[in-house]
């Protein structure tokens, strides 16, 4: 299993087919050492560890399954998919997971080489060792906020932290009207993931799961048959699987179930403002 035995296209096609073939492909991906290594490396490089890597890898597989089922997969290769989606997934986790953020902070705080590099920059640019220590400590506080506010893009967290400290010292020099550090054009204040949108996404997931459970078993079944894998079944096939006489009955039932789900969600309009924007 260390070698990739199937082409990306074969794996994608197997997911699109749905059913048992999709299940087996997902299981195959789940045990795929190379893809898992890409994700783990990405997460470790971004301040996580192997355990977080495993969690992120699972999320990547879920995302892959979803975009392939919806026929929205456009990545040039699965390797690029796993790397890119791992970065996004890890950054999303850092928005809300305090323990994950603490892990990043402690990962940075014990890195002597990084601390040395920051110290050397500050000392070479009108600062003292004490200034360097202050900047390093303030940098750790600030990066925690940046992670929470979705300003980290998921690359090398050490580089991001260095940039945070560089900007802190640059501002300090500016404030004291001292010879400023050159602006290297690296902006760490841009929001990459909007925490508000992420919060709504989580709220929405919980509520949507709740209202879906309120649907009857047959509504749940027909919605899954229709929407799990795009174009997997025709209405005639859905009719047979549902035990309906014909496709028209299946179509009408599907429409009723969709509307029921919609209405159930709308009942929570007063609790969640985002429902009005759906």
């Amino acid at each position, binding site marked *: 299993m260390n070698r990739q035995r199937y082409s990306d296209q074969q794996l994608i096609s197997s997911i699109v087919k749905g059913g048992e073939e999709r299940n*087996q492909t997902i299981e195959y991906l789940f045990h795929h050492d190379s893809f898992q290594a890409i994700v783990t490396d990405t997460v470790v490089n971004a301040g996580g560890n192997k355990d977080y890597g495993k969690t992120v890898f*699972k999320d990547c597989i879920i995302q892959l*399954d979803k975009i392939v089922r919806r026929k929205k997969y456009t990545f040039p290769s699965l390797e690029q998919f796993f790397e890119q989606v791992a970065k996004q997934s890890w950054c999303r986790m850092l928005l809300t997971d305090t323990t994950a953020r603490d892990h990043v902070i402690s990962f940075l705080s014990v890195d002597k080489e990084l601390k040395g590099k920051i110290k050397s920059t500050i000392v070479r640019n009108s600062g003292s060792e004490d200034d360097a220590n202050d900047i390093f400590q303030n940098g750790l506080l600030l990066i925690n906020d940046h992670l929470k506010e979705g300003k980290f893009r998921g690359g090398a967290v050490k580089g991001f932290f260095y940039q945070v400290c560089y900007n802190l010292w640059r501002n300090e020099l500016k404030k004291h009207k001292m010879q400023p550090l050159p602006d290297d054009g690296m902006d760490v204040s841009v929001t990459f993931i909007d925490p508000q949108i992420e919060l709504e996404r989580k709220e929405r997931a919980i509520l949507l799961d709740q209202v879906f459970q309120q649907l009857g*078993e047959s509504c749940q079944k027909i919605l899954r048959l229709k929407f799990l894998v795009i*174009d997997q079944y025709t209405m005639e096939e859905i*009719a047979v699987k549902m035990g309906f*006489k014909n496709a028209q009955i299946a179509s009408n039932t599907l429409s009723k179930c969709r509307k029921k789900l919609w209405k159930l969600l709308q009942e929570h309009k007063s609790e969640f403002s985002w429902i009005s924007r759906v």
Partner: protein
Amino acid sequence: MDQQSINIIEAYINGSLDEEASKKFEADMAEDEELAEVYHEHMLAMDAVDLQEEKELHEKFDLWEKDGQNTPHRTLWPTYLKIAAAVALLVSFYFLFFNKNNSPELNTTLAIEYYITPESPGNTMGRGDALWSDGLINYENGTYSEAIQVWEEIENPSPEMQYFLAHAYFNIKELMKASEIFKDLSNGNSAYSFPAEWYLLLTYLATGEKDNFDQLATVILDNQDHPYHQDVVDLTNSNIKWESDAK
């Protein structure tokens, strides 16, 4: 909302509309509240289904994680092996038919030609019936006798269960048993009544029951809306030779 609008919504969601058609759809949606609402209903239903799938995948991940500690990793090869096994079964089924039935071999060949083993409905639709799921695994693997053994233990089987049980019997050449179940289903009111009629017809053909075949074929041919109407037209236009005709 008419079916054409639904088709356009689905095409837009699937990304199969070209740029111009997509823009037109977006403009229509901005003006037509009902269209916009149905579009949002679609998106919501897709998201809800994705969430359920996400939950199920997490459960599977946990299971595979536990399994992975003790067993070697699975590959996709079993799918191909299953196909090979199914082909082998079909071939042996074909030859056994030749040897064991009294009907002219041409009719048996025809019945096999028209017969398609329905795909398993899958065992992950949350039915929660262990016997049904176990039997489906056997059915999917082509081990029909084992599937029958398990399914026969189910008390008050649903029409869906009966339907697949009949196919399992058909596949192991227990045609009389298959015929009985297909007959019950075709007399019932479930979604399986139409397909059961078609498969009952094929069973009559394979077992050489000319009168029953003619009677049922006429019923189906008289009903233009029968989903297997065209299949029966094609079948009855084929070269069917009955034993009685030969005498």
